[in-house]
């Protein structure tokens, strides 16, 4: 049961072979057994989850089930869920209970899915290793001395440890794809604007995009059907005809043109990652795809541009955490300014403070043009590169991350080294393009390797098709982490 795909679980629930309560209990038991080691969840509330499961069982009994009715899903603790503690991985919101549901949570609730718990994450989604969480680092289920990636590290680890069949995440610079890669699962960041940001705690508004993490592309498609949808409460939400993301999963790949950006296969990639990705591309050729080299020359500027734009937006987005209305407030202070300073000094962790400082600096009078405006120009250049590339190809492939999971503590003293973990994923966010990571190998240390797919705007169904056929012909996505196997 624990190993079944979402489709199989859905069928078993519909056939009344299992109940949602049984399924939910099974996952709660796995969380109970392994969360102390993995630390994938910040909050579990068995009572609330089981109440939803019971309601789902009734709904199934009435014959009113939808595909995800009764299926437990873990949610990154960045989504506001009514009456659930919603911390965003920060001391600042350690005791914050959201009084409302995010659009995505509401859509899962409406579909009858069960909220299995809130997963650990880098504080305010700022990090690539899940080490910046106020609630402690998440440990990679493949090797507990290593990071799971970030910032959706809790979600990725929960799925990789079979502590959830699937999870939601958010991706601002790679925060779904990089942890999916490091944890050997599949993850998708949709086109910017497809998934409402309403109720998703903002990091960098122009880059943030919610998406699913699961064991297979097939599962991702089912999750995407629920997550995508127009929301008038988010002005950047796109109004598009409804899609069935599973509709072309099995379409043949003959004629698929794969673009290989030469800049993404240069120095800095580990040999084993390169070899695995090249083997995967070989597999695609066997499936009828052709490859073409493309150029993304501006992408070498994507990390510096990102580390101007994202902190700039974050410095403003995080101003609301001031101790005045909700959240953490320092216990002792002398006046208003002192209250602000102590509250924010004690409530935020080091990485968040670093980015607020960077963001404040680049928006300051006299620096705005040199940093913020220039970064926006680079952003347009990057989008133009992709537009040109997609004239020659249908999907771009590359490694998701230059290396496999690194050790806990290895990169915490060198922020730049940490930022380079996202060197291949950031450009898709800057351009607003959909990106995906699927497992494509295991290195000599037994750690998973991820293949990144970047598609043109709104090409999610085609990307899922490409990923699904790869997974139909390989078994990397079925490999189990030691924790999942135990």
């Amino acid at each position, binding site marked *: 049961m624990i190993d079944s795909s979402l489709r199989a679980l859905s069928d078993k629930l519909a056939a009344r072979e299992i109940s949602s309560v049984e399924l939910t209990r099974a996952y709660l038991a796995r969380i109970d057994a392994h969360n102390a080691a993995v630390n994938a969840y910040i909050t579990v509330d068995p009572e609330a989850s089981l109440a939803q499961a019971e309601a789902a069982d009734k709904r199934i009994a009435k014959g009113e089930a939808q595909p995800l009715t009764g299926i437990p899903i873990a949610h990154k603790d960045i989504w*506001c869920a009514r009456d659930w503690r919603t911390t965003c991985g920060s001391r600042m919101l350690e005791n914050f209970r959201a*009084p409302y549901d995010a659009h995505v949570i509401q859509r899962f609730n409406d579909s009858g899915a069960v909220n299995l718990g809130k997963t650990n994450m880098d504080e305010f989604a700022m990090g690539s290793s899940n080490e910046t969480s106020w609630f402690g680092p998440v440990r990679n289920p493949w090797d507990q001395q290593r990071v799971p990636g970030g910032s959706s590290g809790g979600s990725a680890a929960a799925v990789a440890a079979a502590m959830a069949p699937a999870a939601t995440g958010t991706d601002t610079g790679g925060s779904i794809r990089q942890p999916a890669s490091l944890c050997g699962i599949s993850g998708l960041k949709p086109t910017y604007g497809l998934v409402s940001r309403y109720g998703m705690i903002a990091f*960098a508004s122009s880059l943030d995009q919610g998406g699913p993490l699961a064991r297979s592309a097939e599962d991702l498609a089912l999750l995407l059907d629920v997550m995508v949808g127009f929301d008038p409460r988010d002005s950047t939400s796109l109004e598009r005809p409804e899609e069935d993301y599973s509709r072309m999963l099995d379409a043949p790949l003959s004629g698929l043109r794969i673009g290989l950006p030469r800049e993404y296969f240069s120095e800095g990639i580990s040999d084993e990652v390169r070899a695995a990705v090249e083997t995967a591309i070989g597999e695609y050729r066997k499936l009828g795809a052709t490859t073409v080299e493309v150029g993304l020359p501006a992408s070498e500027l994507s990390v510096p541009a990102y580390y101007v734009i994202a902190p700039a937006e974050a410095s*403003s987005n995080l101003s*609301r955490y001031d101790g005045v*209305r909700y959240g953490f407030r320092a216990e002792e202070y002398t006046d208003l300014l002192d209250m602000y300073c102590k509250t924010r000094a004690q409530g935020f962790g080091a990485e968040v403070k670093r980015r607020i400082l960077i963001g404040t600096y680049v*928006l300051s009078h006299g620096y*705005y043009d040199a940093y913020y405006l220039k970064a926006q120009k680079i952003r347009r250049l990057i989008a133009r590169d992709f537009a040109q590339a997609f004239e020659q190809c249908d999907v771009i492939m590359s490694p998701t991350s230059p290396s496999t999971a690194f050790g806990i503590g290895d990169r915490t003293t060198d922020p730049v080294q940490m930022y380079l973990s996202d060197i291949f994923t950031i450009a898709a966010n800057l351009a607003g393009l959909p990106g995906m990571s699927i497992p494509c190998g295991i290195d000599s240390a037994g750690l998973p390797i991820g293949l990144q797919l970047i598609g043109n705007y709104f090409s999610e169904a085609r990307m899922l098709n490409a990923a699904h056929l790869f997974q139909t012909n390989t078994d990397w996505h079925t490999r189990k982490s030691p924790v999942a196997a135990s």
Partner: protein
Amino acid sequence: MDWEIVIGLETHAQLSTRSKIFSGASTDFGSTPNTQACAVDIALPGVLPVLNVDAVDKAVRFGIAVGATVNRRSVFARKNYFYPDLPKGYQISQFEIPVVEGGQLVIQTGGVEKTVHLTRAHLEEDAGKSLHEDYQGMTGIDLNRAGTPLLEIVTEPDMRSAEEAVEYAKTLHALVRWIDICDGNMQEGSFRCDANVSVRKKGSDQLGTRREIKNLNSFRFLQQAIEYEAQWQIEQIEDGGRIVQATVLFDPDSGQTRLMRTKEDAHDYRYFPDPDLLPLEIDDAWLERTRQNMPELPVARRQRYQTELGLSDQDAVLLVSDRDTADYFEATLSKVEGNDRRAAAKLTANWINGELAAALNRAELELQASPVSAAALAGLVSRVIDKTLSSKLAKDVFEGLWKGEGSADEIIDKRGLRQISDSGAIEKLVDDVIAANEQQVADYLGGKQKAFNALVGQVMKASKGKANPAQVNQILKQKLDKS
């Protein structure tokens, strides 16, 4: 030495939308604190702003009314600063590209017209309120006002006296009410001004260093604050000092301005485009639709009243001082009987600007609350035009209308005020008076003109004031001269 005062105004007009500029919460004034602040207004984690199209429409109306450029694409920006009544830690405003640019307003001071040029008008949200009283050592925060839509209207430094600044503010105040974008309630803060004041030697074309007086919420304070500030600056310079750019507050109790902060400790607001909001696009169709829905503007109406209806400049200016008055005038005039429309307009204007305005003033009522409707006043004016009423009797009828005694005709009948214009009836009254006042008749015939007036008075008295005075004069004269 002769000094020139240079003034530019920034006015915050609260747009009279039902809901806030970026949320669905109500904008009603005076509710229990924090009952009109939704998740968006209190800036809960994860909430997002959605622009209220009605606020944009009102900004567009303003742009059209002042002949400005309405930008087809404008951008909302975040103005970042920390304050407890600013829930997000930033105010959503417009910075580089505002919705309205340019435009002008014509003002009149001392019978002289002057054009005040506008720099821009931009949309933004209001902050909440910090309440320092009643909270010993603490501050209360009321976020009901947070997110209320504002149009900030900025002028060029075109004004040269406190009087001009006040006249501009009054003209603007009348205009925003006229085009129905702001209720203009200054006590409630719906219309408040910041004044940038500097002084320079007469003849200089260099601007002096300015100081900005914040948050003036009455025309009187605006006048007092500018006068005090300008005098203060002149004295500083004449005493060998210099002006430091600063923001100051006006204290109505002392009548003085005092320093709030200098430029050195001014905030760096770190403006940048708000990534939660798309650029505001206004297409031709929107502009055209709004143009079609615009009321006739005060300047156009004034001209029409003068050229088509022959009203005096003074009458026309008074009638267009606000839209309620102008509309009331037109509603009244449309119901006044009589073929001479110019005469009807003149008389209607006299009644509105005279008797009605005085009565409203005594009762401290707005025109909208007038007990005398336009139709009722038209009934009265019609009876004056057809000479049923003398002007004296008309005042009695007006009093009846004010007290709600019915229509003009009903009051005339009820009170028996119909003017006696029947020659036979007047002749009889005259005959009686002549018979009863031999001495005065003799005095008149002896050449005393005064005696004639006394006899007229006797006739009017006998008629209880209802006799047509012109006819009384004529008939009395005829009869006396014959005798």
